[in-house]
């Protein structure tokens, strides 16, 4: 089962929910292997809390064109074809702009002379490790790199078929978020009860509905603002999965990279219960993996 934790607005507590849910389940439910995939590759933070031992690290690249000047006849077909202006040919041997390339491979397919091969442009690093019983994978986007989806796709290759995979998504509603959410069985949308939280939640709800994935809302710092988020969820028939109250102890534990289930009594059980309820909502039996 794959559960993705997402939110329109940043800083609402995605990472807190993902990591604490993982720890609660792996420490309490036998025979449920848990994987955490941090797909917020621009600003990955799960490792600060799970403190995994990283045992492999590899570069992830996207294929970009490499032109063989000897074979090129400057016909210009590659440049006319490219939708991203990543290869430009003005009656000359083409010039490539690897940072604009999406790696579709069209130019090398179209070249009548077979003059275009592919090389890799590094977009970031993929790191794999272990934190207690929790398997851990994250991507770290190279600073200055604009394109995160290829790296997110690389992280998602580690989706574990058995057991539970928890995906920490980036904030927002655009392509990196879609890449992280696609293929999930359930999405937890984390928000806070403020006008910004509500507005960004409605955008995130639109997005998850388009992807046709079951979802529910978790309201974090549930007592800091007003009731409009709850009212919205009720009006739209969206289940409110959990409300976590604002608590200075939580904020301080978070600031130091601690697990909040270790500072708030009973929270571990609350997260386990959340997991069982989500399983039920997805129509799966508790012992399916056994």
């Amino acid at each position, binding site marked *: 089962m794959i559960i993705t934790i997402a939110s*329109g*607005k*940043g*800083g*609402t507590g995605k*990472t807190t929910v993902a990591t604490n849910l993982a720890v609660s389940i792996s420490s309490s439910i036998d025979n449920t292997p848990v994987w955490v995939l941090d797909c*917020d590759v*621009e*600003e990955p*933070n799960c490792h*600060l809390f799970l403190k995994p031992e990283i045992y492999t690290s590899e570069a992830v690249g996207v294929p970009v064109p490499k032109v063989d000047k000897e074979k090129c006849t400057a016909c210009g077909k590659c440049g006319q*074809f490219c*939708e*991203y202006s990543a290869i430009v040919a003005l009656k000359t041997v083409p010039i490539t702009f690897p940072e604009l390339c*999406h*790696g*579709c*491979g*069209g130019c090398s*397919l*179209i070249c009548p002379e077979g003059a275009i091969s592919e090389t890799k442009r590094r977009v970031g690093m993929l790191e794999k490790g272990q934190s207690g019983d929790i398997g851990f994978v994250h991507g770290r*986007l190279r*600073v*200055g*790199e*604009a*394109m*995160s989806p290829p790296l997110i796709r690389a992280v998602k290759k580690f989706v574990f078929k058995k057991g539970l995979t928890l995906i920490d998504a*980036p*904030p*927002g*509603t*655009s*392509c*990196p*978020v*879609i890449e992280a959410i*696609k293929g999930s069985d359930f999405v937890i949308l984390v928000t806070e009860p*403020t*006008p*910004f939280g509500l*507005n*960004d939640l409605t*955008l995130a709800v*639109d*997005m998850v*509905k*388009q*992807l046709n994935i079951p979802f529910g809302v978790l309201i974090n710092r549930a007592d*800091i*603002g*007003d009731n409009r988020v709850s009212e919205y969820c009720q009006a739209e028939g969206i289940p409110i999965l959990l409300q976590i109250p604002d608590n200075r102890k939580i*904020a*301080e534990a*978070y*600031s*130091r*990279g601690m697990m909040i289930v270790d500072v708030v009594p009973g929270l571990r059980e609350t997260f386990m219960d959340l997991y069982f309820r989500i399983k039920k909502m997805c129509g799966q039996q508790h012992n399916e993996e056994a």
Partner: protein
Amino acid sequence: MKKPKELVVISGKGGTGKTSLVASFAVLAKNKVMADCDVDAADLHLILKTNIRHREIFKAGKRAIIRQKDCTGCGLCLTNCRFNAVKMIQEKKGEKIFSIDPISCEGCGVCVHFCPQEAIDFPENVCGEWFISDTRCGPMVHAKLGAAEENSGKLVSLVRTQAKKIADEHGQNLIIIDGSPGIGCPVIASITGADLVLVVTEPTLSGEHDFKRVISLTEHFNIPAALCINKFDLNTSITERIEKEAQEKNIILAGRIRYDKEVTYAQVEEKAAVEYNSSQAGEDIKALWEKLKTIL
């Protein structure tokens, strides 16, 4: 006439208070244009109360669509697509029906070009909408990216260009830009060529980690940066550590804002923190703004 200056507020980590700060700057600054470049989760309009006077569709990129009546089911599109966007949706009596998932399609055109039946259309894609609005704090350019859409970077560039156009036409000397979280495409599009980036972070391990990454980004693009730590009193030792790192990198310490629940109450009443009476954080923001004016 002097070129208007661009101040961009970014954070790396989300939810550190970018939009709350920008709303307060909008109230404090004179003779400026506002630009909300957080196009996939725009919130500034909730505080500044926009009165839209111009709106336009934003088109970017293309999407491949198979015309079923012309498709012979050869499956070449499935073989060629590197984005797993082509789905085989039915296989009855040996007949294969292919379709393209619009969400996975990157608009590269490979399937379109190589389809032996020329059975794939490739129309331009409507990705969102952008607006010019009047607010109580002056003109503002903002946008809304469609749900599950791409091309946020291009939309950010468009919002910035429009804001500059307004500033040039009406003689405003400052553009205040609300950026998005992260360090990827929309952030890069919002900071390249700007005059000053203000990084807002919070004193948590995540805030510190993300601050380092976002500062490497401003260094990478060689853009002057200033730092502000929001809720600095949540963990003063991390605050001091972040400020020390900033100084070592020649980043200007522009200010600290204390943790103050009034900032949230102001937002609930749809006001900027500096407009909300008795907000102590509001006083910190005023001091921060005075400092920023001297840097710009």
